[in-house]
């Protein structure tokens, strides 16, 4: 009798323990939320770059990586080298399967060095190919130079430990990260993702699309330049001729001599 009672208590205890332990994680899994503000970006006549606020709700005891990744493309580059004591372009390089823009942030700097992590510049290096005027042993060096070039334009940014975390409801936390997309972002469909890491492994992942489009005058001119190139060129020349004549005429009527 007493034994049954004890077993029953133990069973109940186990049940509470298991359910209680699982619930936060399960509710976290259900609640992993990813919000973008704005949800799309328009490049208009006065566009000068844009702020993107990413909010994610994840389990409180987990770490996370937030990424903004542009569409993959080919980057055509020239390498500089010394020849006869002078610096000049000494060959062409192409890096393919590489995003035009790549911004990422981590809740914990240690995540940057997690082995075989699918984020960060090391992962980009493994996913991409370098071809052209470079020996296999020089590839790593030129990939680092490429990252430096992209970083100088604000197109690649790594910010370990720069995510703001606040406690959220029911064992969750709310992460906020503000990214700056520079004015030179090419239009396209961008991917914003959050990856949740627990005990050294990615346990959850959520992605959302961010559309960047040219609108208004930039869109009109871009389309004209590419679809009606001859007309566009002639119009460009006529505008210039008219402006030159008008200005000459204006100065003449002002009568400087």
């Amino acid at each position, binding site marked *: 009798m007493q034994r049954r009672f004890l077993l029953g208590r133990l069973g109940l205890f186990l049940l509470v323990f298991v359910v209680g332990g699982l619930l936060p994680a399960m509710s976290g899994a259900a609640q992993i939320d990813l919000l973008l503000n704005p949800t799309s970006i328009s490049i208009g006549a006065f566009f000068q770059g844009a702020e993107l606020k990413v909010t994610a709700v994840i389990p409180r005891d987990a770490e996370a990586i937030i990424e903004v990744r542009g569409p993959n493309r080919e980057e055509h580059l020239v390498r500089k080298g010394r020849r006869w004591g002078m610096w000049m372009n000494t060959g062409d390089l192409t890096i393919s399967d590489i995003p035009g823009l790549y911004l990422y942030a981590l809740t914990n700097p240690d995540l940057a060095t997690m082995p075989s992590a699918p984020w960060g510049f090391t992962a980009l290096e493994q996913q991409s190919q370098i071809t052209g005027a470079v020996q296999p042993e020089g590839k790593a060096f030129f990939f680092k130079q490429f990252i430096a070039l992209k970083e100088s334009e604000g197109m690649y940014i790594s910010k370990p430990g720069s995510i703001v975390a606040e406690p959220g409801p029911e064992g969750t936390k709310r992460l906020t990260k503000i990214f700056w997309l520079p004015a030179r972002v090419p239009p396209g469909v961008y991917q914003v993702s959050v990856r949740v890491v627990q005990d050294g492994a990615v346990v959850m992942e959520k992605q959302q699309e961010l559309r960047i489009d040219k609108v208004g005058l930039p869109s009109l*001119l*871009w389309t004209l*330049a590419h679809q009606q190139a001859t007309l566009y060129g002639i119009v460009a*020349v006529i505008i*210039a001729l008219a402006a030159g004549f008008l*200005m*000459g005429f204006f100065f003449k009527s002002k009568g400087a001599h």
Partner: protein
Amino acid sequence: MSLNLYLPIAGQSVNIILLLGLGGMVGFLSGLFGVGGGFLLTPLLMMVGIPPTVAAASDSNQIVAASTSGTYAHYRLGNVDFRMGLLLLVGGVLGGTLGVQLIKVLRRLGDADFVIKITYVLMLGTVGSYMFVESLQNLRPRAPSKTKEPTVKKPSLYGRLIQALPWQMSFGKSGISASPLLPLFLGALVGILAAIMGVGGGFIMVPVMVYMLRMPMHVVVGTSLFQILFTCINVTIMQAIYNFTVDVVLAVMLLLGSTIGAQIGTRIGRRLKGDQLKILLASLVLLVMIQMLVGLIKTPHILLGYKGGH
């Protein structure tokens, strides 16, 4: 409203005041010296972050406006020798076509970049130094003892050679007579160099007209602008058709500045003596040469760049 403007073809946002200022400065030099200013503006635009190909093409578009404004101002002052300008233009187009083929061959051989940069430094260095020294000597007041009874100067070998060419004709505005073969040949030579260097060639054309055609400086400036106008119309349309690199928004911002600058330059140019003008242009050319040389020797910050420049 922000002061930044998005350039649709360059895919970059740039401050409006900066663009107007750059345009104004280059237009001023254009009106003053009869150069297109491409050799100055293109590198400056690249520093602002405009891709090299878009910088060069939009610059050509802008030069159309500046040189129209400048040619018009010089035409009213009677400074344009149309006959000479047309001959140089025809030569220039032939030379330019030849130069483009030459560059293709050099690219296949692999050292095009080196040839382009060295051509720049050598041309700028030679032309700049020669003009500088020559104008300085002319500006110095001569000692009275030296002004002996004026003897008829014996024509140089070059002088006799150009007089020996067939079909001598007179160029009224320039006050010289020469064979049309001479401007055709010299125009072609400048055209080849301009194609190799990827610029309009005004800063080589001006010294060629002064020293090899012996035209007076003021007519040189007007005629050079006239010639540049047509070269740049051609380049703008070709770039728009084949490379999609003409950014009209960029060009309009630059030309607003440059057309005003060109008018001011033309007026100030009239108040200066030919030798003063030459010495100023020579200093500018030498400065650009030194800047290029430093760029060649100094170790770059990042050993990679985007393809598309020279």
